[in-house]
Every structure is written in structure tokens, then in C-alpha cells.
């Protein structure tokens, strides 16, 4: 129970009792040779997992992700040994089994988890919040969640159950911490005391922009809306979020010079496209270029809204296809 000292919370029941009793029999069979190989690879025996628990965990994960076959895999279909092998070998199996063992309340797995991730998690939380005390609070809060103190529908929920081994467990933990921090910030950053609240002055209705500016705004909307996902991501990250080239490059795993080049090309393309659109609206080349010299403050355009409500489908809609 050493991890509880950091959390500062005493659980109402032992960890063993929080073990989810839903290691049920799932459809599908894993080939014994592959199972043996995965057993050794994952070091599951060190956590005290039984073969049945191990097999049930693998089947649950495989079925949840369709063994990596995407839409081609129909639920209940038994994949081939090769498909199973390819899928399971692509996973971070040791991290996955550790997380699943922790979610099941395995003490030895928890001990190892704490030994491996306690300090890195705290350091990540401090790095994310930029503050030692806030970082410590954030890490402790996540520990409490990971331990399964959150009860939903009368059942303990452990976020580790949602980990499926596609990325590293440490990366998952970091992303979870960042999610918690961002969500907390978004909930609280607009809060301010009432006495400091100042009634905004009356804002007179703005004059309608001239016809040329209206055409320009439409041309820009059209040009931005036709950008690809990566290009919009680059524009949003660089111009809206004001991330550096290095930060963007680290996320995309490219060199920052590549990001710089791409951004320049995107801006050039946007300019050309806006000019072309303006010309298509009947403006001459010279008039279109003069229109581009307009003061951006005169334009009735919200680039943030424009970039983040493009013509592309939402992530959920796309993923559901």
C-alpha cells in the first residue's frame, strides 16, 4: 500500500476486492504456441497471473481492437494465427499485461508499477503543470484514479483498463495527466471573483465591411477550408496556439526545417488560392493584390473558428465510417 502514502487516501476496501470479476470467456482461441510465446514475452508470470487470466485478457483486447484488422474483421470471427501474432506482437505487451494486472488489483503488479512509474509520473506532472505542488497534486489525483477509487455503477473503475498497449504505458500516463490538467484548466481558468467583474461597455454595432472586403473574407474562408488535415494542423498549431517549430516537429516526428518549409508553402498556396478566388469573383489581378493589402482588423473573419470548423468531418464521424 505504499502508493497510498503518496495519495493520502486510505481505500475503503483492499485492492484484491477491487478486482473486476469480468474475466469472462470470450470468443476466439489463441494458438498455444503463440500463447506460450506471448506469456514469456509479457513476463506475466512475474505478476502472479494465471494462464486463464492471461488468455482472457488477450482475447478481450484482441476482440476490442478487431485484431488489427479494422473494418474487415467481424465480431465473433476467429482470426488466423498469423493475424493474431501480427496483432499481439505490435502491442507493448509487457506494459499491457502490467496495466491489466494492476487494473485487476494484482499486488505484485502494483508494486512493480509504483517502482517503475512513480517518479516518472511525478516528474511528468510537474513538467506539465510547471509547478511542483500542482504537479504533485495532479500525480496524486491520477494515482487515486488508477487505484480504482472512482466508483461508477457500483463498480470500481480503473483507467488502466482502457490502456490497450498501442503506445507505451508511460506515454499513456503522460497523456492522461495532460488531459486531466487541460480539462481542469479549462474548467477553472475563466473563474474570477465577482468584485473584479467589470461590466463591459456598450459595443456599438460594427459597420458592415465594404463589398471588396466581403469578397476577400469569402475567398479566405474558401482557401482555408480546402486545406488538408496536416496543413490545418500546422496552421492552427503555429498561428493559433503559437507553438514553436521545434514543438510541432517533435509531435510530427519531422525536422523543424521541414515544418518551416511546409508552413511557408502552405501560406504561399493560400495566397495564390485567395488571389485566384478573388479573380474568379471578377476582380482584376491588381485589384486582387490590393485587396490582400487590406488591414486584417477590417476583415470579419474568425480564423480560429474557420480552422476548427472546416469542411472535413468530425473525428467521431470519420472514425465511425
Amino acid at each position, binding site marked *: 500500500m505504499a502508493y497510498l502514502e503518496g495519495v493520502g487516501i486510505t481505500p475503503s476496501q483492499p485492492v484484491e476486492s477491487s478486482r473486476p470479476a469480468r474475466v469472462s470467456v470470450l470468443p476466439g482461441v489463441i494458438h498455444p504456441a503463440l500463447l506460450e510465446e506471448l506469456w514469456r514475452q509479457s513476463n506475466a508470470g512475474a505478476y502472479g497471473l494465471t494462464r486463464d487470466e492471461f488468455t482472457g485478457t488477450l482475447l478481450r483486447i484482441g476482440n476490442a481492437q478487431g485484431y488489427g484488422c479494422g473494418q474487415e474483421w467481424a465480431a465473433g470471427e476467429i482470426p488466423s494465427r498469423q493475424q493474431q501474432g501480427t496483432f499481439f506482437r505490435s502491442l507493448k505487451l509487457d506494459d499491457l499485461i502490467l496495466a491489466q494486472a494492476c487494473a485487476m488489483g494484482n499486488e505484485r503488479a502494483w508494486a512493480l508499477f509504483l517502482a517503475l512509474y512513480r517518479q516518472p509520473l511525478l516528474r511528468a506532472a510537474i513538467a506539465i503543470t510547471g509547478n511542483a505542488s500542482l504537479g504533485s497534486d495532479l500525480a496524486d489525483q491520477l494515482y487515486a484514479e488508477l487505484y480504482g477509487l472512482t466508483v461508477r455503477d457500483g463498480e470500481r473503475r480503473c483507467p488502466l483498463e482502457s490502456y490497450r498497449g498501442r503506445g507505451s504505458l508511460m506515454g499513456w500516463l503522460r497523456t492522461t495527466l495532460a488531459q486531466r490538467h487541460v480539462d481542469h484548466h479549462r474548467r477553472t481558468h475563466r473563474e474570477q471573483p465577482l468584485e473584479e467583474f467589470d461590466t463591459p461597455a456598450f459595443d456599438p454595432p460594427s459597420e458592415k465591411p465594404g463589398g471588396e472586403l466581403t469578397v476577400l473574407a469569402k475567398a479566405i474562408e474558401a482557401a482555408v477550408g480546402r486545406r488538408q488535415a496536416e496543413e490545418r*494542423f500546422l496552421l492552427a498549431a503555429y498561428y493559433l496556439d503559437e507553438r514553436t517549430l521545434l514543438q510541432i516537429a517533435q509531435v510530427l516526428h519531422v525536422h523543424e526545417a521541414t515544418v518551416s518549409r511546409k508552413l511557408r508553402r502552405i501560406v504561399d498556396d493560400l495566397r495564390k488560392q485567395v488571389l485566384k478566388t478573388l479573380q474568379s469573383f471578377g476582380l482584376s489581378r491588381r485589384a486582387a493584390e490590393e485587396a490582400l493589402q487590406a488591414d486584417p482588423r477590417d476583415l470579419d473573419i474568425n480564423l480560429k473558428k474557420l480552422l476548427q470548423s472546416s469542411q472535413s468531418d468530425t473525428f467521431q464521424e470519420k472514425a465511425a465510417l
Partner: protein
Amino acid sequence: MNSTFQPDSHPDAESLSAFAEQALPEREHSQVLAHLAECSRCRQVVFLAREAASEFEMQEAAASRLELDRAAAYDFAAVMALTPEPMAAAGAASGRMAGKRQGWWPGGWRLAWVPAAALVAIIGVVVFVHVQSVRPGFESGVKLALNVPQAAPQPQPNPAQPPSADKAAIEKAKPAAPPIAAKAPAGKVLTASASAPSEAFSAQAAPPPQAPPAAGAVDMSTTELNMARSIPQPQGQGAGMQSNAALVPHATPATATPRPAVFVGGNSFNDTRAGTPSVTVHGAAGKVQASRSVSAGVMAPQSALESASMGSFVSSQQLSESKAAVVAAHKAKITLLPSGLRAVSIATAQHRTLAIDSSGTVFLSEDSGIKWEPVARQWSGRAVVVRIQDGLKTDRAVTAEVNVASSEDESNRLNPYSAVVPPAVFEIVNDGDLVWVSADGKTWKAK
């Protein structure tokens, strides 16, 4: 695929994490990227997680570097200890570092400091030994010269005895000197310059009063190597001058214009030529040592030189010459006389050089020490000191005076050796402090 979403339709933590780690399939990667292009919240999450990962990687890299350094240090310690257990541990550590070790240098450049430090230490030891091998001659020479008045009495030479017998006698007398020198520190000797023995000696055998040298006069043409003993110094001078006066008897007490403590010398005792700068060196009998007689025991040589230059007409060139002279005297002290003994007192004037060995035999050289001839004994007792009679103005002394007196004489100023040089007179002092004089070094008359 809906299982990857959270209720608010954002990709879940694993999808974002896998996206950042490039672990998503192409199709899902582009889906997450499209979402990130529109969702500032998920972008923020991804960037924050990525920054934390970068910081973690930097810390890990630093920690791994530290661990590698420790492992390397442990390897080195194990190798140095050459014991089985550390070697085994070092082997394990080497196994960890196997991937890092490449190239001809087995321990990486982190271990390069070991041979570098050893090299520096060796160089330091060599320099130290070299300095120590040079300096003791000067230091002990000064000490011995200062301690000479208290030194054990030398055995009386027997003129009938051959030089070898004298040599044996000197060898017997040798061990007595160092303990006395050790008992009497230089400072004590210097402060005792006004003590009773000195006064008594001065009363008995003080050299005749002579005219003090002109201000700025420097003895440039004489060389005296007095190793056997020196005459107690007169009183009333500074420490440096006292010691100098004690060592150089012809440096009579100068009240108004102290005689400069610098005797600018030639290249070496053997190389001393007529008209060239000379050096005065004092030492102990039988010791292969020389001293900077130009400086007192309480003064550093350089400071003594500086003090001399301040109180006299000594140019920077003369100072450098005096330094060279000291080095030359150091070389000269190892020269053996035809008797097989070392010179204990040497005086050079023009082309003549007179030397007394430790047995009291006087030798004359008219070719600057290349060829020596014994001088027939014309004095009583044992000759202990040979010197140039004081009061004679030498070439450079004359030149200095000329320079001071007449600045119009440019030729004299530019050519310090152009003045007429009077012949030097040698003096021999025996162990009874009686003096004999000679102009040519061969014929001696009692003074």
C-alpha cells in the same frame, strides 16, 4: 473504433499517446491528425505530453550520462585495484557499456583524463626535481657563506704534505661543517654581524680603510670565488650590504654610498676574459656549490638584484649579466684544479685568474682558467682567500664615473670599456689574516 473515443468525442489518451509515438496505423493517424487540426484541447494535450516526454528524456539522458560516468569510474577503480571482485563488477559494467564503447580507446574519452593526469604529474615531478637540483647549490651556497665565520676550523695544511694528504685531511674535516651550518640559520648569522667575534675580527684584521667607490660604481672586471671562509662584515649597513660586506672583504663599509651588491660577471669562471664582466662566488670547502653572493641570505636573489640596481648605477643589462654570471659561477664551481681539489677562492682580473684549492695551494692561470700553474709559496700559513685589492677603479667603474660626470662624452657612454684600466693587484689572505699582494700573481710581497 468507437471504443477509442471518450464520451465528449475526443480521442482517448491512448490514441493521442500512440499518435505522438507514431504507433498508430496510417488511417487512424490521419484521423487523429484531422481531429487535432480542429480541436485545440487535444492539441494542447498532445503538446503538453510531448513536452513532458522531452523533459523526461533529457533528464534520463543526463542520468544515463551520470551512470556511464560512474560506471567508467568504477571500471577504472577496478582496473587499478586489480582485484577479482572489482574486475568482475567492472566486467558487468563494461557489459552495460558495450554498446557505447567503440574505437581504439577502450574506456571512451571520459577516461582520457587518467593518462593526461599521469603525464602532468610526471612533468611536474621532473620540473620539481630539476629545480631542486639547481636551487640547492645557490641556497646552500648562501647559507654556507653566511655561516662561514662559525664554521669548524680547517685543518692546518702542512706544506710538506703532498696534495693528496691535504685532500684526505679536508675529507676528514668535511662532516663538521654541515651541522654547524644547520645550527646557525642565516638570519642569526646576519643579525650577529655586530657580535663580538665580528668586532674582534674587525679589530684584528680589518682591511685598511679605503676610499668608498664612487656612486654607481660596479666591480665589473674581477672575479672572486671564496668558498673557504669569508671575513666578517662591517657594521652600519643594511642586511644585504652587511652580508655582502662580510663575504667580500674589499667591500669596505660605505656610509654614504653603499657599494652595490651586484658583481656583474662573465659567462663562467673558465670563460672569464680580460675586460669582461666578472662574478664573485662564495661557497664552502669541498662542496660543489655556489652562492649568489650578491644577495644576502634574508633577501631573495631577485630582490637583492633590484635593491642593488636601485642604489647604484646598474642597468637592466647589467642585471641580466649578473644573472648569467651566477649561472656561470655555478658552472665554474665544478672545475677542478690541477691538485685534484676544487677551488675555494678565485679571483680574476683581466686575463689572470688566481685560485686557491682546499689545501691552500695557489694556482695561476693566464688563459682564463684553461691552463693552471702552481704559484710558489711566498707567504706564511695557509692561503685561504685570494682577492682583488679594493680601491682600484676598474674599467666599468671608470666608465660609470665618466657617465655621471660628463654626459657629453658619448663615446665613453657607448663604449664602457674604452677607459684606461689600471692594473689589478691581487691579495692573498692566509689563515692568520695576514695579507700578501701581487701584481702579476707570481711574485708576492707582504702587505
